[in-house]
């Protein structure tokens, strides 16, 4: 569905050049749900804008949905759907108007556009909102409308740019459901960017991690996590046996970063869930009692930290509930970025 080689974008402004994307290779096969994860400014949106014909690559080439990006951008446009970060509806437009216009710009007749729009509004829980101005919709509804607009021509490949930025947790969970259904029920290939770890984790079959304009890692969420520091395990024991417990733990294959405190032993191990049963038996054999145990799977932020030495910006407390202001600030920061990019390009 997507095959990009050495895709690169350089912006020049006032004599300074910025390599926003430094030559990325991307392969996405049909039916995959691939996530593009990275902090703000990593080059996610720039890459996406190149793949969706909105930005001409400085170098490199790509086949998108069977068409050559450079030779046949109109062909690409016909075959893909794109749901932009900030959406794309006019606040004073009615839902039905936007849907019909979108359908007709993709070449559908009036009746077909309306028919297809009905189908989509039902699928996306937007029924009954036809005559509402888009500015009166809730954030979640508006985002679903954006998705409806992106799907109006039944594309086989859909790009989502930060689909849930700025949404509340319920809307986000709801949107994830819709995105999953697109794939499972309609076999749509999906490529999405996100800087939310749990989003990439929850949705994607495969993740590309981008940082500083380069892809720094690639794999399934689990593979990426396993690759890094391993699970973090904390054992609670009686104070006076802490040292003996630590000795036993030290014998576990792959255990590292072992630290102790009175009554507590912490370490990392590639697979915490499989290491624990053996550990329990070892404790039994030595007649030691384990008071508690805790296994924490590494987060994608751990992955990112290991790969780049930096934390993803919104890593801590990114379980979204408190993050609305943050998300909004980010969204507007991204807007600025988006507005500036073409200036630099010009």
């Amino acid at each position, binding site marked *: 569905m997507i095959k990009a080689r050495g895709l690169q974008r350089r912006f020049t402004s006032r004599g300074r050049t910025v390599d926003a994307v430094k030559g990325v290779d991307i392969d996405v096969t049909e039916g995959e749900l691939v996530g593009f994860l990275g902090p703000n400014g990593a080059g996610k949106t720039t890459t996406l*804008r190149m793949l*969706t*014909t*909105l*930005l*001409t690559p400085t170098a490199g080439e790509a086949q998108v949905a069977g068409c050559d990006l450079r030779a046949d*951008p*109109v062909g690409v*446009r*016909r075959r*893909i759907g*794109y749901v*932009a*970060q*900030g*959406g*794309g*509806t*006019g*606040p*004073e*437009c009615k839902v039905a*108007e936007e849907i019909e*216009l*979108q359908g*007709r*710009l*993709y*070449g559908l007749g009036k009746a077909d556009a309306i028919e297809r729009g009905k189908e989509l509004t039902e699928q996306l829980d937007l029924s009954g909102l036809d005559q509402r101005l888009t500015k009166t919709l809730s954030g979640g509804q508006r985002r679903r409308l954006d998705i409806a*607009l992106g799907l109006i021509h039944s594309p086989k490949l859909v790009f989502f740019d930060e689909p849930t930025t700025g949404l509340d947790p319920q809307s986000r969970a709801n949107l994830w459901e819709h995105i999953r259904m697109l794939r499972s029920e309609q076999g749509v290939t999906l490529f999405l960017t996100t800087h939310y770890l749990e989003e990439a984790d929850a949705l994607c079959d495969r993740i590309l991690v981008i940082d500083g304009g380069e892809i720094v890692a690639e794999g399934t969420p689990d593979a990426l996590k396993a690759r890094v520091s391993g699970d973090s395990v904390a054992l609670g024991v009686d104070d006076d046996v802490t040292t003996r417990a630590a000795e036993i733990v030290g014998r576990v294959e792959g255990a590292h970063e072992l630290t102790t405190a009175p009554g507590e032993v912490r370490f990392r191990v590639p697979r915490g869930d499989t290491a624990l049963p053996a550990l329990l038996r070892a404790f039994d054999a030595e007649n030691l009692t384990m008071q508690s145990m805790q296994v924490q799977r590494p987060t994608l932020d751990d992955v990112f930290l290991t790969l780049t030495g930096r934390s993803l910006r919104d890593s801590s407390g990114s379980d979204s509930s408190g993050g609305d202001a943050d998300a909004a600030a980010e969204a507007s920061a991204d*807007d600025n970025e988006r*507005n*500036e*990019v*073409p*200036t630099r*390009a*010009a």
Partner: protein
Amino acid sequence: MLRDTWLIFRRDATLLLRNPAWLAIGVMQPVLYLVLFGPLMERIVTSTPGFPPGSSWTILTPALIVQLALFSATTAGFSLLADLRNGVVERLRVTPASRVALLLGKVLMNGLTTVAQAIIITILAFLVFGLSAPIGGILLTLLIVAMLSVTLASASYAVALTLRNEQAFPALVNSVMMPVLLLSGILVPITTGLAPDWLYAISRVNPFTHIVDAGRAGFRGDFSVDALLTGSIVLVVLMSLCVFWGARTFRRENA
């Protein structure tokens, strides 16, 4: 492309009709000039030598219509900046729709809007102030402002797309339009009889002077080559250039 143009035109028309107040607000300024400034002109025109022929109303009304076109069309870029901010431009650009149609649909709507507003002003001048002008001449002037509106709106969109800055855009538009307006003799015609030579010379270089002159000629029913030729040529050339510029910006703009 025609179909796409029509679709975009219709979208903008729907939006305008949803908030017709904007139409009225656009008309307010020229109406105020007509009511609060026009009566002053009446005396001055008759007692001052050097004015072009015609009554004060046939001099002022077409000029106000041109001024209206200047104002409303040059600020058209604002709506585009809003569309950029809302992501509408991006969304439309990712569809297979013709890029040129995305521009044409909008500027044609700008042209039609200006004509509608110009008609309101003309009717007002006719009913309240006893403007007398031949219908053919009025139609000609309406055509002129429609073309002018298309011209300036194209330029405005091109500038907005290039600048992409909601603060800088009005500042730029103002600093360009203010001298253009003063030098086109909209309020007081810049004639050899009224203006010093240097001012007259500068005003002749301003393309909009000739367009205002052509508009005035239409209102007084003067269809002579002398009165219309320069203005028409200037307008056609400007329109071609600006539409080309706008279309190029829409097509090229980071794509």
